[in-house]
Each structure stands twice: as C-alpha cells, then as structure tokens.
C-alpha cells in the first residue's frame, strides 16, 4: 500500500498515485483545449472589429461555434474533473475510487472533445454551442457532446465514490474541508447539468438520424439551458472553491465561519441551477410567474450566497493577514498581500472581476423585464466573459501556477512573466467584458458577422458610431487577453516539459504553502467587534455600485416603447 502514496514535501498533502495521474491527465487536456479555444477566440474578436473584419462569414460562424465549445465546455470541464479528484483524493488523503473507470471517463471525454472539434471543423456543424433545434447539425455533433457528458458524469461519480472511500477508511475526522464541500456543490450541479444535457441531446441525436420527427423549439431551449446554463454554475461553485483554497494556500486562511460559508454553498445546491431561466425571459410560452421565480433563483437566495462568498473569501484573507500582524488601518492587509505572486493576483482579480463586472451585469440582465433590453445582444457575451473568463478561467490559471510544483513536481519557469500574466489577462478580459456590454446597450447583436448589413441588397441599419469604436476597443482588448492567455499556456507547457524536476523530499524556498496563524493570533484583530473592517468597506462599495446600476437600468427600460 505504501508506495502508491507519496507525501508532498511542500504541502504535506498525501497523493494517491493513480489519482495524481488522473489529475495530471485532465489538467493537461484542459490546457490544450484552452489553447485551441483561445485561438478561435482571437479570430472571432478580430472579425468583430469592423475595420479588420478578418474572417469570411462561414468561417466566422464556424470559429464562433468552436470557440464556445472548446473553452466553455472542454477546457472548463476537464479542469473541473481534475479539481474534483484533487478536492477528494488529495485533500482527504485517500485513494481514488475505481481509477480504471475514471480513466474510461477521461477517454470518453477526450474522444467526445476531439470528435466535436473534427465535425465542427468540417463545416457540418456550424450551429453555435447552443445548436438550437430545428437548425440541424451532423449527428456526430450531438454524439460527441453525449460522449463527453457521459465521461464527465463518470468523473462526478468517481468523485462521490472517493468521498465514500475516505469516510469508510477514516482518512479524515469530522466534516470535510470547506474547499471539498465547495467541490461537492460543483459536482452536484454537474450531475443535474449532465442529466439535463442527456434528456435533450439524446432525442436530438435521434432526430438528426431521422428516428424522431420533430424537436419542439421551446422545449429544446428549456431543457438545453438546464444543461448550458447550469454548466456555467458548475464553474461558479468550482472557482469559488478555488478562491477559498488559494486563501489557505497563500495566507493560511480559515473560514470566517464554517456555517455561513457552507449554508451559502447549500443555497447554490438548491437554487443556482434555476438561473437557466435567464435564457427564456424573452421567449413566448412560459409564464411570468415561472420567469420571475426561476430567474431570481427563488427570490435571489443564490445571489445572496454569492454576495456572502464575496465577503467571506476576502474576509478570511483579511483576518489571516491581520492575525499575522498586518493589522493597522483599513487596508494594510491588502497592501501587504503578495501582488507579484500570480496565484494570489489571479485569484484576487478573478474575485473583483467576477463580482463587479460579471455578477452585477448578470443579475441586472436576469430581471424579467430588463432582459428585453439585452437579450441576444453582445451584452450577453460581455457579461459571461466577466463571469466565466475573468471569474473561472483566471481562478483556474491562478491555481495551476501552484499545481505545477505540487502535482507535477516541476519548478515553474519564466517566473517574471508569470507574475505579470494575471494582470495582462485580467485587464484584457475586463476590456472585452466592458466594451461588449457597452456595444450591447447600443443594440449590437451577438453572433453576427456584419452589422453594416452590406449583403442585404440595400436594406440597412446604422448603429450609433460609438458601437464601432466599442467593437474596435474590444478587438484591442482581445489581443491583450490573448497575449495573457498565450503567456499562460507557454509558461505551463514549458514548465511541464523543461522546468527543473523537484526531488521527492525537496522543499521549495520560499515555501508555497502558508502556515495558518494560531487561533490566539486571531484575538483582537480589526476594530472592536468588527474583525474585517476593510472587507466590509469593499463590500459596501460593491453594494452601492450594484444598486445604482440596477436602478439605472430600470430607468432605461422605462424610456423605451411600451411593451405589453
């Protein structure tokens, strides 16, 4: 038994070798699909820049389809499977359940992802990621997604099995860690996501093969979004777990209170998936009651959960920093944070970008009535580049810098570039999010090759001149973000290939795992009864921005035509 475990000298974590290999394989596959999807993203961004207009129409729509699938599905889900194995086997110090089945799941995911890229590249599946019926793709398109989803579902059940193993073999005492609990949340949402995907994609495959006569367009949208939106909710639960993990890795932070953070995750488990209804707010056939209840995640209980995490993640960092002696003023804890460490800076930019850009825009766009102003405009991709790229992707990048030595036992190369990378990527992607949202408020449609309408034989619409400027600024931001994404891929791939191999007992200096402060160090931090005044002030700023933007949009709505 002993030799199939190793203990990491830097972190003290106990790695089961088969689990470790699975984590490595999934993480490497993730980065490969990030690279592919990123290249497609560059082509899309440059085509939407009116002065450049790089690709012809058919290639633009093809690239957009491939971009969405490679980054929104393949990169993120591969990484999340690696994360699930890490949060179960590594954090609980146990063996992974059924490694052979886990490898079968990985193989299915890989086959699905490759098949999908192939069939999209042939031009027979230029249907966007959403593949809205009755627009039809080649059957292999649906089959590839089903294979990928089944593989991912297997990964989820290996994760749940590993939790059972850890409990049965008593590798931990009491409750699982908060980070593992967040991973459980992500896995539960993943199960609902994949089941929804199966319910709709299997009949759609049969329809494309001619065994079923018709797929109802509205039923397709309803169930597909149970898959398509919930898969982004896996990302939210996963990247918030990563934030908590990085708070412990960099600062030795502990949860402000276990109860509050876990209840916030429970609100996700119960209500986060309801937000799939965001996509149906401008649809016929579903009632306002359905729309209001579901789009508000049951009266904003899941939004409340996100805002709670938004306090407790930086709050736990502030408390740990104050316990270490950075206790003066409101923000000494933040000034003295390691801003040159990409694991921290990536996580913090992810937190701020997800909240201010992605969170606020998502809730506002999800208001039943206000949605009519944004539905299917480029505001929508603006919003989700803030949530899923600044939020999730940057958080995963930040963690990857730490995983290189811990999991792969290689020293990171190009450390200077790495310290800049989160800023490059974060600023570039913030530009993408803001400029797309700006163009969206001017009515620019998403997924559209030519907003000058040059091919319509003279029936044209002229958007405000600012729309062209915003799309050009978006193109520049895309280049910046792609430079940041490319830097990440180069650093990680070079580190894995050429980074110095670390010895089995070798400890890195400086250490890459903070020592948690003693409980007694936490006594008397902050001001009076408020232990984290700085975080509370930041949360207040966030709240004001949120409320102001929310009501501004009601005012915009009131100014347009009457709609009844």
């Amino acid at each position, binding site marked *: 038994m002993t030799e199939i475990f190793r203990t990491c000298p830097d972190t003290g974590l106990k790695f089961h070798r088969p689990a470790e290999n699975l984590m490595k394989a999934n993480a490497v596959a993730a980065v490969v699909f990030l690279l592919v999807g990123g290249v497609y993203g560059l082509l899309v961004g440059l085509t939407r820049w009116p002065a450049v207009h790089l690709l012809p129409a058919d290639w633009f729509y093809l690239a957009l389809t491939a971009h969405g699938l490679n980054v929104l599905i393949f990169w993120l889900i591969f990484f999340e499977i690696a994360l699930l194995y890490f949060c179960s086997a590594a954090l609980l110090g146990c063996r992974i359940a059924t490694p052979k089945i886990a490898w079968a799941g990985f193989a299915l995911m890989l086959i699905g992802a490759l098949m999908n890229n192939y069939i999209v590249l042939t031009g027979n599946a230029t249907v966007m990621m959403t593949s*809205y019926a*009755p627009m039809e793709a080649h059957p292999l398109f649906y089959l590839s997604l089903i294979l990928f989803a089944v593989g991912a579902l297997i990964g989820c059940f290996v994760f749940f099995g590993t939790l059972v193993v850890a409990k049965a073999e008593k590798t931990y005492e009491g*409750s*699982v860690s908060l980070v593992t609990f967040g991973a459980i949340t992500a896995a539960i949402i993943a199960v609902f996501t994949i089941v929804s995907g199966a319910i709709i994609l299997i009949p759609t495959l049969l329809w494309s093969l001619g065994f079923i006569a018709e797929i109802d367009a509205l039923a397709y949208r309803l169930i597909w979004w149970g898959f398509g939106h919930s898969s982004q909710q896996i990302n939210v639960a996963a990247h918030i777990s990563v934030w908590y993990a990085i708070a412990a890795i960099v600062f030795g932070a502990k949860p402000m209170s276990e109860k509050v953070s876990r209840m916030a995750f429970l609100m996700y488990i119960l209500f986060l998936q309801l937000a799939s209804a965001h996509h149906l707010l401008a649809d016929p056939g579903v009632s306002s009651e359905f729309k209001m209840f579901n789009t508000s995640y049951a009266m904003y209980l899941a*939004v409340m959960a996100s805002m709670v995490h938004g306090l407790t993640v930086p709050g736990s960092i502030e408390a740990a920093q104050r316990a270490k002696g950075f206790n003066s003023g409101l923000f000494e804890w933040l000034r003295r944070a390691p801003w040159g460490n990409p694991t921290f800076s990536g996580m913090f930019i992810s937190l701020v970008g997800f909240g201010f850009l992605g969170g606020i825009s998502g809730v506002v766009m999800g208001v039943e009535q206000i949605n009519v102003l944004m539905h299917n*405009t480029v505001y929508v991709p603006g919003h989700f580049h803030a949530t899923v790229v600044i939020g999730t992707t940057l958080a995963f990048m930040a963690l990857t810098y730490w995983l290189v030595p811990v999991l792969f036992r290689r020293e990171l190369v190009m450390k200077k570039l790495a310290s800049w990378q989160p800023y490059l990527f974060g600023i570039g992607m913030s530009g993408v999010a803001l400029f797309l949202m700006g163009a969206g408020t001017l009515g620019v449609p998403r997924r559209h090759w030519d907003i000058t309408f040059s091919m319509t034989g*003279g029936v044209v619409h002229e958007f405000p001149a600012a729309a062209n400027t915003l799309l050009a600024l978006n193109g520049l931001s895309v280049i910046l973000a792609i430079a940041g994404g490319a830097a990440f891929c180069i650093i990680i791939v070079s580190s894995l290939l050429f980074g110095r191999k670390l010895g089995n007992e070798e400890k890195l200096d400086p250490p890459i795992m903070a020592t948690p*402060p003693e409980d007694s160090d936490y006594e008397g931090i902050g001001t009076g009864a408020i232990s984290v005044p700085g975080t509370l002030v930041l949360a207040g700023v966030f709240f004001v921005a949120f409320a102001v933007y929310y009501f501004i949009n009601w005012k915009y709505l009131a100014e347009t035509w*009457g709609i*009844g």
Partner: protein
Amino acid sequence: MNSTLTPPKSKLWWNEPVEKSELIWISIVFVWGLVMSFMMPYWHVTGNQNLSNETYKTTPERFMSKAQSFVDEYTVRNEGPRNYPVVKPPPGGDVYMVARLWDFWPIVELEKDQTYRFHLSSMDWQHGFSLQPANINIQVLPKYEHVFTLTPNSAGEYSVICNEYCGIGHHMMIGKILVVE
C-alpha cells in the same frame, strides 16, 4: 490550526458563533434580495414594459395565411430595395410579422403613441426580433405564435434585425417598422 483546506477544528461547527461582520452583510444582502424580488411584480403593476406571454401553438402554413390576409387587407404601398408591402393597420389593430430565412416580412407602418397587437412567429428556424434603436429584443420560435403589444413612443424609421444565429445568411436578415406622427 485549521484552514479552508482542512476539516473544521470543532466537530460541532454548526454551534459556533457567526462573525459580526458576516451578520451585518447577510442582513444587507437579504433585504436587497427582497427589494429586487419586489421590483419585478411591482413593474407588472405599474410599469409599461412587461412582455406578454400570450402564446399559441401554430404551424408555418397557418401563421403565413393569417399574415397574408393581414397584408392583403392593409397594404398601402410597396417600397424599399426588396419592394416589400408597407402595411398600415388601424390603431389598436393586429400586426402580423413573419420571421424567415432571411428577412422579416412585411414592412409595417404604425402611428406614434398608438398600441398594436403584434403576432410573431418563425417559418423555419429560431430567430431574434431585435427592434433598433428602441432596443427591444424578443425570441422568435417556429410553431409558436407569440402575441404581445407594442406602443411606439417616437416617430422614425426602425429596423428589425435578427439577433438569433440562423445559419449562413443570418447577417442579411433585416426588416423595417416605420412610425409616423
């Protein structure tokens, strides 16, 4: 010593007190959630922009024949590069608009500050009814007839552009709504 990566130190962590900072924030966001929950039904009562959900199952043929009789009855002239009928229904009347690969048909002429009942459906795939620059965006589905009202609040030429991807000609799909005083 514990962290977010280790099991909680206390096995009865549920009974541990909650930080005051957290209690303050939870109270604020809970009230904010109630405010936002109130706003949507409140707008249904007092606001002028509440998209109707009145919907019927239909077929492309049935919808097209209704649209054709609407065009036959109220066409006032033909115009534009596509020589499309400009249809002017009476104020308060019904408007049929067909979304298809790749245009919106016919051209509609409305009077400012009058309310019209729009009927919208697709002949083929999914489309997006995006009225610019008013920036009103509604999903259009085949086999569903969506009925809602629109009340123009200023005169001018408006475009209806498709903002749901509908194949290789998606960027050619455009129509017009004219609003007169």
